[in-house]
Every structure is written in C-alpha cells, then in structure tokens.
C-alpha cells in the first residue's frame, strides 16, 4: 500500500465516521424540535398541578367546603379587558368584594354588544397570583359557556364562587381577570 492509497483509506474511514456523527447530531436536532412542541403539554400539566399560570377550573365544581373561616377576610378584585376587535362594553358590576374562605358569593358582570351585528363572545379567566388559582373555585360562571349577543343586546352574567379554606396564609388579595374574545368565526 503506497502513501496515496493509505490516504485514500483514511479518507474513506473518516467519511464513514462523519456520516455516523452527522446522523447522531441530526437525531438530536429532530429530538429538540420535538421537545419544543412537547413543552406545550408539559407546561399545561405543570401548570395544572401547581396552578402556575393562573388558570382556574374550566368546568363547574360543586360547593364542597367544610365550613367558613370567619377569622379571615380575603379581598377578591375583578377586572375585565377586551381582546382585539370585540366592541362590547364589558365590566364587573362591583369591582371588589371581601369574602371569608369557604363562603359562597354571587357577583355579576355586565356586557353589552355595541356592534351592529351579532357576536359570540367568550370570556377567559385568569387569577393572580397564579398560585392562588387552585384555591379559587367557580360553582357557576358565564365563562364556562359562549355568550352570543345580538346587536345592541345587553346582559348581566353571573359568577358564583368560593375561596378554599386552604388558601395559603400569605395571600390576602386575589385578582380575577377576564379577557373577552370574539369567537364568532371560530364557533361557526
């Protein structure tokens, strides 16, 4: 075997090594691309367990509190906001309320369709601080269903809730924020 052939042999084995390494690295690339998408369900599960992102229960729960903690008062604030492109007037009837943990409360929100056509709205709630979300229970909420409003129609929508007895002691104020979306296109 002369020098030229030796070099050639060297090149062939390194080409084989190269394609092996490339394949492994491409596998990492594909896996990480998948991992990016896997973060979506992972994030949901993580938030579900910890209540991290302030998402509250999206279906009604029964009132199961074992009592009312009269020694403690928690302030619950309500804020509303319209997402892009929904011309509704949407606001809480009362801005804040004080409740004892375990005590059931009923509050209402006012909505009016200021557009000249029918719109289906959907309110999406979020609780701040996020960790309190798992301790805020909605027995009945307009956010569980879609809200179709005809042009110029107005409505008062109710929310019935209670704050869990187990609410961590360092949380004294809860802010419940509703964002209203126009889902006319998506629901038709």
């Amino acid at each position: 075997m002369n020098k030229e052939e030796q070099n050639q042999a060297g090149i062939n084995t390194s080409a084989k090594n190269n394609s092996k390494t490339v394949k492994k690295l491409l596998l990492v690339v594909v896996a990480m691309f998948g991992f990016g998408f896997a973060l979506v369900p992972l994030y949901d599960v993580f938030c579900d367990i910890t209540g991290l992102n302030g998402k509250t229960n999206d279906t009604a729960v029964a009132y199961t509190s074992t009592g009312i903690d009269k020694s403690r008062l928690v302030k619950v604030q309500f804020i509303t906001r319209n997402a892009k492109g929904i011309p509704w007037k949407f606001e809480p009837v009362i801005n804040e309320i004080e409740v004892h943990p375990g005590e059931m409360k009923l509050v209402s929100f006012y909505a009016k369709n200021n557009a000249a056509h029918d719109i289906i709205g959907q309110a999406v709630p979020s609780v701040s601080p996020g960790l309190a979300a798992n301790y805020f229970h909605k027995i009945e909420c307009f956010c569980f269903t879609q809200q179709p409003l005809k042009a110029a129609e107005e409505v008062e929508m109710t929310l019935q809730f209670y704050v869990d007895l187990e609410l961590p002691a360092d949380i004294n104020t809860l802010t419940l924020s509703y964002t209203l979306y126009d889902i006319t296109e998506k629901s038709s």
Partner: protein
Amino acid sequence: MTTDAIAQDSHDEHHDDSHEHGKMTGIKRWLYTTNHKDIGTLYLWFAFIMFLTGGAMAMVIRAELFQPGLQLVEPDFFNQLTTVHGLIMVFGAIMPAFTGFANWMIPMMIGAPDMALPRMNNWSFWILPFAFAILLSSFFMESGAPNFGWTFYAPLSTTYSNGSTAFFVFAVHIMGISSIMGAINIVVTIMNLRAPGMTYMKMPLFVWTFFITAYLLIAVMPVLAGVVTMLLTDTYFGTSFFDAAGGGDPVMFQHIFWFFGHPEVYIMILPAFGIVSTTIPAFSRKRLFGYSSMVYATSSIALLSFIVWAHHMFTTGMPLFGELFFMYCTMLIAVPTGVKVFNWVATMWRGSLSFETPMLFSIAFVILFTIGGFSGLMLAMTPVDFQYHDTYFVVAHFHYVLVTGSLFSIYAGAYYWLPKWTGHMYNDTLSKWHFWCSLISVNLLFFPMHFLGLAGMPRRIPDYALQFADFNKWVSIGGFAFGISQLIFLVVVIKCIRGGEKAPAKPWDGALGLEWTVASPAPYHTFSTPPAQKDIDNI
C-alpha cells in the same frame, strides 16, 4: 517557519495545480466554493455588511432619541428599526462572524485539511443572504417590517402583528437551518478530523469553545424553529398555542422562547472567550493560565444556561420558589465566569505584555465584559429586577456583553489573524485609532444608559420624558462616534488586503498554535498531510 512546513506548502501548491478542485475564477469561485477559507471569508464579509446594516438602523434610532419628542420617524417605524436592528446584530452579524472564525481557524488549528462536510458548508453560508433578504424586504412592503421586538413576544407577533410575521418566521427558519448545518459541521470536524496525536485536552481553547457552542446551537436552534412555527400557525392557521381564547397561554411563549434565548446569549459569548483565550497568552508571552479549568468552566456555563431562562421573566408573576430557583441558578453562572476572568488576568500577571491592537481589544474585552457581567448579576436579583426590567439598564447590560464583549473579541481575533488571512500586516496607526475611538465612544454610548435605566427610562420607546434628555444627548453623540469609528476598521481591512508590510508566517512572537506553522497568507490548502507531532506538542 520550519523547513517541514515550507516543504509541505510547496507540495500543496503542486497538488493544487494538478487537481480539479483548484480555485475557480470570478463569482463562481465564491458560489461553488467548498474551501473552508473561502467560506470563512464569505461569512466574515457577510457579517460585516450586516453589522453596518444593523448599525445604520441604530444610527437612526439614536438620532430619533437625540432629543425628546418625535422628530425623524414614526413610532411604528421606530419599533421596526429596533426589532430588525436586534435580529440583524444577533443572527446576521455576531453569529455569522463567529462561524467565519470557526471555518477559517478550526481546520488549521487542529491540523485538518478542511471542514468535514465541505458541501454542506457551502449551503449553510449561501442560504444566509436569502434569509436576510426576506427579512429586510419586509421594510419595503406596505405593512412594514417586524415591529414586535427581536424577542417577538406573542400576542404582539400574532394577534397584533402588522402582517410581517410570515416573512419573519421564514427568515428565522432559514437562519436556524444555516446555524444548525454550520454547528453540525463544526462538531463533526472537531470530533473526526483532529490531527493524529491531538487529544481533546490538547486542543486550543478556541476550538473547545466553538465545540461547546456548536452543541448549544444543535440543542436550541430547533426549539427556536419550533416556537416560530407555533407563531406561524397561531397567526395564520387558527391554532391557539399562545392564544388564551383557544386555551393557550401567552406566557408559555416566553418560556419556550427563553429556553432557546438564554443558551443563545452564551452562543454569542463562548466563542468570544475562545478568541481572547488565544490572544491574551500570545501577547503576554505565557501559556494560558488554567487551561483545563477553562474547559470545565466553559462546559458548566453551557450546561447552566439551560436552567436559567426564566430570569428574563421575573415580572410575569412567577411563584416565589420559581423566582428563587432562577435567581440562584443565574448567580451560579458567575462562578465559572469568574474562573475565566481570573484565568485571563492570571495569564497576564507577570507576563511580558505588549500592546498590539489585538491585545488592546482583548484587555478592553476583559474589563468591559466584566462590567456587563456585573450588571447581569444585578439583573439576576429578583427583587431589584422588578425595577430594572424593560428599562435602559437592560439595554446597557446586553450591549456591554455583546458590543464590548462579543464584538470587541471579534475585532481582537480579526486583527490577530488578519496577517495570516491576507499575508499583510494591517496599518498599525489606523488600527490604534480604531481601537481608541471605539473604546471611548462605546463607553459614552452605553455607560449612561445604566443611569437612564435606573432612573426609569423604558426601552423600545421613540420619545421620553424631559428629565432623560441630557443623558440621551450624550448617548446619541457616543453612538454616532462609535458608528463612524467602525468605518476605520473597514479601511484597515481593505488596505490590509490590498497591500502593506509583508507578514511573516508567525508575526506575533508569543503566538501558539498550528495556524502559525503555515505560510502567510495561508495557502489555499493546508494540512493535506497531518502536522508533525512536535508542532502539536508545542501548542
């Protein structure tokens, strides 16, 4: 230069003539080239052109901010400028410049004839101009360029997008593919093409930092591709990854983005560490202090970068344990970084220092990057971050690490290897002018931004309250001066390519490394036969 090397060079040239893979002429040489030196040159020029493009945008931004009130541009156009300035500097200037260094130097430093995958190398460069053509073309469209910030937070880039999201997403896809191909090439080259006898722990630290950076790129660029894809489908195909109306969560965007984004900032600084770890020993005439601790420090910075992303999001309403976790992990990064700074200083300690331009840029790097690191530590503290978040303090911080950090290291490297690349010494006087003008103006430009931020001036605004006027005027003057100073570099490089004092094979007497065993300018093909063992032992 040893006689061995001369013999080898003449062999190379002979080889060249008889071989069909010789140089083509004209534009075809550059379009079809698979030569690592040609591709390195292309990357470096492309990066510099992009640097000037992004810099021109910064000049308009600073002109608008010269005094309070709206003078030159509309707020929407201002937002487009800040967004595209950021994107171009990150993906178009700093990253391609480093890939250029990798292409030019890694094969020569490890004694390999070329990169392992030369054709892919050609591709990974040539798709890049198309990515930036797509991005920049959106400036000339009715809707305008992306205006949602380089971090493209949803829903700014989805629901509230001005219609440029698709162009933006495809441009990022192409940049990502280019980076991934470049990174795969670097890893394969380093793993498979090291000269016999060059073990991993004998590799120059420059090669180590690019090796680790390439792994970071392979790990996080796909995540970026994923997140922009989600953005695309959210905007145009009715999915709801980040849309609360459909059950998504806009904060999740920030988590995924910064899972990419934080390793990305180390992608832009680790190669800089590699460059100054090459230049500082050369001009201190000592070996790098603590080589293996440098390798381990670089690796631990890379690993830690995956678990600190949420320090960009302290104000999104994280629970306390989350804030503490990310705060402590972030502060932990100061330890390996401190090891590196210590080692650079220890390398200089009692060395016989000389202050050629590459060394000046390297010393400025060590000092100014450390300032950027300190402001980073301040930002890492959750309680105070609530005040600093989204202010000019953040702008000051990341410009200190990216401009006086990454960019200064690129200049250090460019001056250090220009004799090897062109065969000529650069004009020393002009290069010193470049350094001193840059050093003074860059501090005038970015240092007062700390005070502006602490006083509460928010970032990404075209107009500001009157009390910020004086500092902004100085910042803008510094900005213009810094911009003009960079043109000196262009002149130096062009003069150096066209002529100048002939460079010897090893123009720096303290320089170590295989690249100095070949002639200057480096022959088109180097190390067709592996370097001698004694040369490897010497580095």
